[in-house]
Every structure is written in C-alpha cells, then in structure tokens.
C-alpha cells in the first residue's frame, strides 16, 4: 500500500496495539495447549490418573512413532483423508447442481422442501448401519455416509441464498433481454460465491464427521476404524492418538479452504 508513508502517530499507535494484542492471543493459545499436555503427562506420571485408560502424551507419541515406522499410520490417515475429500467433492457437485435445479423449478423446490428439512435434521449416524447393509462394508458406503451428513444442508443453504438475491438484479438481466439461463450464469452463481465458499468451509468438517461415522461401522482401515478397534481391544493409546490426528486433519482441511476463500474473495 502506498498510504503507509504518511500515517499519523496515533494511527501508528493504534496499529501497534492491535498487533500486540494479536500476538498475545496467539501466545496464550499455544500456552494452553502445552500446559494441558504437561498437566496430562504429569498426572499420569504421578499416578493421579490411570495411564492405561487416559493414555498420556508420551504414550501417544510412542504409539505414533511405532505406526510411523511400520507405515500403518499413513494408510489409516490417507484412507480417511481420501474418503473425506471424495465425499466433499461430490457434495460440492451434488449440492450446487441440486440447488440450481430447485431454483430452476420453483414448484419442485416447494414439493421437496419438507423432505429436505427432515433429512437435514435427521441424525445421519442413524443412516450409517443401513448404508453398510445396502452398499456393503466398503469405501462406497463410507463415502455416501460422508455425503449424507453435508449434502442436505448444502442444498438448503445454497437454494435459500439463490432466492435471496435482489430481484432487481435479476430484472436487470431481463431488461438486457437475457434468458433465465443468463440470470443463472451472470447473477445467481457469481453473486453467491461468498456464500458458496462459506458453505463449503463448513462442509469439509461435516464430511469428515460422516466418514468417521461410516468407518466406525464398516471399515477395516481409517482413523474411525482405529478408534473403534482400539476401544474394543482396550488399546486406548490408539483411540486417543486417532482423535488427536482427526483434530489435526480437521484443522488443516479447514485452513486450506479458508485460504482458498480468502484468495477467491480478494481476486474478485
């Protein structure tokens, strides 16, 4: 920016204060994480809590290092991430195309609305066992489970966003002798890009939830499988390590989408 050269001293002060505050918040956040780990480790070492049930940072680290050695951790993480990304991609395609279809056909949207609302509020974990029976205990049903968590909300949110665009902007297209198709490609889709991006940002997390639910019931690989298997054989180190890895995966995926969103919005 070219304005930096003649910034007033009060503005400079203000900016410095803001920056300080930002740093402080970051430092406190990181501190909380390490204090938590430290307390946890100490509590186990001093036998305040049972390490067999509660695991501990050092045990988790050892488990992780062992699985790194025999490469099995890459398999489990890779499978879960791949399933999440595939179901996310399908949610994007399905969600946008269904929302467009509903927008094209208002009567259809009014017919389907109660069904979508019910399906959206239904706890999707209830569907997972059914999917396994219908589609088999394989990747397909896990991906479908991932889709089922995110897709209905996506359709509803996008469709609502489409219909909320100012009618005058649509009228403008008609005054320029455009068709309904032009309304879609020139107004509806480009005009709701911020909404599309924010919906997708939420979706990636939802897909991960669905995939893990699917893996609980019908998988031989993946972090969800590791959690269930670990709890059955009482290897709670596996369980808690997997949970922590899921936290990390969720954070990274969200961060990537956040970055894409920032990029897209800046370029506009």
């Amino acid at each position, binding site marked *: 920016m070219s304005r930096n050269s003649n910034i007033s001293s009060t503005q400079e002060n203000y900016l410095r204060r803001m920056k300080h505050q930002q740093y402080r918040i970051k430092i406190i956040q990181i501190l909380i994480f390490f204090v938590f780990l430290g307390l946890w480790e100490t509590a186990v070492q001093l036998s305040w809590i049972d390490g067999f049930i509660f695991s501990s940072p050092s045990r988790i680290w050892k488990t992780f290092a062992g699985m790194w050695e025999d490469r099995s951790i890459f398999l489990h993480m890779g499978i879960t991430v791949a399933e999440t990304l595939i179901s996310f991609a399908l949610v994007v395609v399905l969600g946008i195309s269904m929302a467009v279809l509903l927008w094209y056909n208002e009567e259809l949207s009014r017919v389907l609305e109660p069904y979508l609302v019910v399906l959206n509020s239904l706890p999707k974990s209830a569907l997972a066992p059914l999917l396994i029976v219908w589609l088999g205990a394989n990747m397909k049903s896990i991906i479908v489970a991932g889709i089922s968590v995110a897709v209905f909300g996506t359709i509803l949110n996008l469709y609502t966003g489409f219909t909320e665009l*100012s009618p*005058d*902007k649509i*009228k*403008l*297209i*008609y*005054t*320029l*002798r*455009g068709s309904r198709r*032009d309304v879609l490609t*020139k*107004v509806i889709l*480009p*005009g709701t*890009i911020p909404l599309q991006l924010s919906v997708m940002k939420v979706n990636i997390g939802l897909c991960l939830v669905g995939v893990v639910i699917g893996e609980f019931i019908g998988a031989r690989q993946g972090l969800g499988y590791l959690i269930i298997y670990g709890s059955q054989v009482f290897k709670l180190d596996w369980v808690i390590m997997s949970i922590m890895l899921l936290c990390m995966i969720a954070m990274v995926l969200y961060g990537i989408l956040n970055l894409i969103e920032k990029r897209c919005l800046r370029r*506009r």
Partner: protein
Amino acid sequence: MKPLLELAHVSYAYHSKNGETIALTDISFQVKKGEFIAVVGPSGCGKSTLLSLISGLLLPESGSVLFPWATQQVEDDYVQECAAREHCDNRNVVQAGTGFRDKIGYMLQKDHLFEWRTIYKNVILGLEIQKKQNEESLAKVEKMLKDYGLYRFRDARPSELSGGMRQRAALIRTLALDPELLLLDEPFSALDFQTRLTVCDDVASILRKEKKTAILVTHDLSEAVSMADHIVVLTKRPATVRTILELDFEEKNLTPFERRNAPEFKMYFNQLWKEMDGNEQKQ
C-alpha cells in the same frame, strides 16, 4: 408518420395472496420517434410498472402496447419482398410489432452494477448476453467510456466510483446495445442535487446527439419540465392519465440546465404543480 409507441387502454394489477393491487387503469398515450416524454406521478402510483409493460417484462391484463412505426417498417419491407418473390408468409408481419422490443433500452432505478465485475465488464454485460461483442460494438463502448470520463476506471470495481459515475456506467451499459427507445426509471433519484443537474445535462445531450426516443419516469417536476417535450401526468394509484402537457419552449435545443432559467420554465412548472395538486385534492 406512425407513432413509435402506442399504449391503448392498458391496465395492470398485481396479484398476491393478500389481495390485488390495481396499479394502472386505462392508460393511453403515444410517443413519436425522437421525442422525449416524461411521466410524472406520485410515488407508488405505477410508473415503474408502466415501463415494465412497455419493455415487455410484464404483459398488460387488458389493452395493448403497440409499436406501429416498427410494424410499418416491416410491412414496407414485406411488400417489397413480396414484389420480389412469388409467395410470402403473412405471419412475419403479425409478429413484427413485438420484435421491436429488442430495440428497447431500460434503465432501472438503481444502477445495479455487479460488484464481482469490473466497470468494463459491467458495461458490456448486455453485449455479452446478446452475443454482440464485435469490433464495432466494443469500439463504441470504448468511445463512450472515454467521452463520459470513465475510461480511467474501466478496471475498477463499482464500489470505487461515485454515484454520478456509476449512473453514467449504467447508461453506457444500456446504450451499448444501441436501443431505439430508452426507458429511464428515475435514473437520477439516487444522486445529490448538484450531480443530478450535471448528469441530467449529460444524459440529455447524449440522447439528443444520438437521436434517441426516450421515456423518463420521475417524481421530480422540475426535472420533467427541464428535459421533456411532453409530460404525461398520472393520478394516484390506480393510475390513469390525468393530462398530457405539451411543452413548447421558444428557444429550441436548450440543455436542461438552460431550460431551468428560461422564462417559460416557471409557467410550465406551476401548471404541472397545479395538476399534481389537483391530484391531492381529489382523494
């Protein structure tokens, strides 16, 4: 010469669950080629509806919107063609009137420039939609951008422009399609007074230079008197034509701003005021 546009007993009502809003009843008037018509009436009386009916975005519930001049042109061509050929199909002529709608430019109350497009991309939106982006039309857009002082801002976003500049960009977007008839729906209402006077002058000179026919909707009486050849005065809703005022300034070709200082201005303004006042009394 046949009029360019003829409204005959046009009525329109909006229907919704909560009831019927009768917007227009029995509207009739004509517009000749090259004329500048102003339509005034109290706000909410149905002026925007009238423009939508003329442009064909809405269809009248009764009455008709006709384009006799265009029909005549087509008929003339038709006769010539028939003379040249053995056989002609009559259907061409019947559809001719509405074909003129493609030559109508409609400027809405707000500029509605899209924030996700640059100014240049905004002004060629119409060309893009009608797939008329060719060397000639783009050169014309380029020239208009230069003439109206927007060339520097061609890559800017709409939010970086002032109200007056945005309005001019919207005008270029409309003119890029080279319309024969321009419908202007309170195009200056969002501007502050000073900008309004200059943009008014700009628009009037542009329209005069390009010999366009225009219908300007406004609730600002002085704006109507300063720009129009005729003023159609509408009553309160449900609107009907109260009177049509003919403006005859001794000196022709005055700019809107010059008209405001002409001796006849005050007289016409008062006359119009009385008509509108009569509106109020009647209720």
